[in-house]
């Protein structure tokens, strides 16, 4: 196993240990974000610098490994602001030429925002709520423009709040705001960051689906009705097979797009858009099929297929 692969495996272990199902359910019930202690586990492991090149103080993982990291993040429902920091916020700050030590070290938190609306003079931001006030805000302003701002100033007016997934700090939209300062990321670096960000979103959704496929197969083998495991019923088996098709094809497409980004291939944006279009919808379908396979228990809070399903929905909505 290469050193980078060991990093991927370590990340997966940290995710599983830190955010196991009982802890995720607890956060969701409290409608809260992870504790500082939980975030510190990732910070101490250097996770926030995974996508930052080594010469800029990061770990410098390649696109393939970053994709696998995102897959694990999806499987384990990594809190959103950690995900956004790893794949978008911190690499952008580094690419803008700013010092990232305080961010990678967890002293300053990062929020990722996406420009909405078509008004060129008023960039309105949807900022994700984090465990602390965001010290840095990174704005993804389109396929080639990324701003590593220093802070935000709220705009006057009504506060807009829309939350899709409580307990993850995900998509809780605060007051619209504008960046107070700006540090533009050079275009080529911005393009790569945005492509990796979009790929990571797809990989995250894939991870959600893959986790539910595995749980569904295990459940179907164990759950018995009419004197036999429900996995022996063709209707259930075929549903699982259909889920597998989505997951297997998604994995193939992730691998291909990852290579295209790495190679700087001219076809990358077309295939990335195709991946987003197909995989996000299909991952959601896999999650919905998982609920069906689990029957009544699939609809319970404890089963938490909800978490994965919601992740794929909100991932699809966020780009």
């Amino acid at each position, binding site marked *: 196993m290469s050193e980078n692969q060991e990093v991927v495996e370590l990340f*997966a272990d940290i995710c599983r240990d830190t955010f196991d199902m009982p802890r995720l359910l607890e956060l969701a019930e409290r409608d809260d974000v992870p504790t500082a202690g939980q975030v510190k586990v990732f910070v101490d492991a250097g996770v926030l610098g995974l996508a930052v090149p080594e010469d800029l103080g990061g770990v410098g993982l390649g696109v*393939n490994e970053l*994709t*696998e990291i995102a*897959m*694990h993040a999806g*499987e384990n429902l990594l809190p959103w602001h950690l995900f956004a920091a790893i794949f978008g916020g911190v690499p952008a700050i580094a690419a803008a030429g700013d010092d990232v030590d305080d961010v990678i070290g967890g002293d300053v938190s990062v929020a990722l925002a996406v420009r909405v609306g078509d008004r060129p003079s008023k960039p309105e931001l949807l900022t994700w709520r984090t465990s602390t006030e965001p010290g840095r805000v990174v704005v993804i302003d389109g396929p080639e423009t990324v701003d590593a701002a220093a802070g935000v100033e709220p705009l006057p007016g009504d506060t807009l709040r829309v939350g899709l997934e409580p307990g993850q700090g995900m998509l809780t939209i605060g007051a619209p705001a504008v960046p107070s300062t700006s540090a533009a990321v050079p275009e080529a670096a911005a393009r790569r960051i945005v492509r990796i960000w979009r790929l990571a979103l797809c990989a995250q959704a894939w*991870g959600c689906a*893959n986790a539910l*496929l*595995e749980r569904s*197969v295990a459940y*179907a*083998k164990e759950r018995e009705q009419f004197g*036999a*495991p429900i*996995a*022996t*019923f*063709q209707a259930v*088996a*075929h549903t*699982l*097979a*259909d889920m*597998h*098709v989505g*997951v*297997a*094809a*998604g*994995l*193939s*497409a*992730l*691998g*291909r*797009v*990852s*290579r295209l980004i790495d190679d700087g291939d001219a076809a990358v944006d*077309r*295939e990335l*858009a*195709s*991946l987003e*279009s*197909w*995989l996000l919808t299909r991952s959601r379908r896999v999650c919905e099929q998982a609920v069906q396979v689990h029957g009544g228990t699939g609809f319970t809070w404890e089963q938490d297929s909800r978490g994965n399903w919601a992740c794929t929905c909100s991932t699809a909505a966020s780009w």
Partner: protein
Amino acid sequence: MVTTVLRPTLRFDDADEDVRARLRRFIDDHDPGRPSADFPERVAQLRQWQAALCAAGFIGMSWPESDGGQGRGLSAEAVLCEELGRTTMPELINRIALYTVAPMIQQWGTPEQRSRLLPGMLDASEIWCQGFSEPSAGSDLAGIRTRARRDGDDWVINGQKVWTSRALWSKWCALLVRTDGEPGSHKGLTLVALDMGTPGVTVRPLYQMLHEAHFSEVFFDDVRVPHANVIGEPGQGWRVAMSTMGFERGLFVLERQIGLRRRLAVLAEQVGERPDAHVKLGELAAMLEVLRAHTYRTLAEQDLGILEPGSTSVDKLLLTECYQAVCGEAFDLNSQPDRLFMDEIAHDLIEARSVSIYSGSTEIQRNVIGSQILGLPRRAK
């Protein structure tokens, strides 16, 4: 089960791109023209086309050099598929021979069989068909009843096959017969190379929904086949057949996927200016990109020798989804409520129904995924 590790994908190196450039020049200089509407004429055109490609060195590129190939990887075959897909004759007439039967003979056959049977596959001078399915053995191939009884140096065959594609103009048949045991068992099956001109072989064409005789019934009345034509050993037939069943699927799916892209491009020309069509066209385009990505993975894994059993069932199911979606959308977007006639769009819609049935039905593919990949238990009998 799917692991959280990215899989390999097909890469084209400089040698592959050189093949692509030469092939494009060849196609430009030797345009086969539009295929004839007359079916037998179309078959003759396709044979000539493959013969020309063979003479130019583009057929069997992945075969070992000792078998008349060039020892290249599957990436070269993928180039051939992709470039042929842009022509009016995208399909190789002897595809079954090149990508299904040839691997069986290369893996299990004797040196004499290789030297006798393989060359004619390349230039399409000897077309092959595959005799597997029977009236009582479709999805359940273990139900095969066609029997072969040993008589001296020969096997004497009696029985019947159905859905045999290309039987009408095939020289050879890769025939799966029962030499031992009873129907219902995979054991006791044997694969033989049958000369279709042997006395006692009767071919009766079957007309499918589109009234084209793509396949036939084939009857065997005391047909004598030399023991030297057994591929592998008697009783090994199931293993021989299944060992390479998935080999052709990657290239087959790639070829079909290119055809679907052409259909989509035509559809975009027909309805692209309609706003209601944009989203649907985009979805279909995305689906085809994912299909291609998955096919590239299958071919890469096949080349590396790490293709997992049952994995090409995913390819077949994805192709089915895409095929029926593209043809269905083409029909819906072009539909005219006051008439229905058999044009190319309706033809494709009907033909698309066969994709979920041939080469292993959708239900069988899902069963394979369930048992071989997901490890699901079977119901006790």
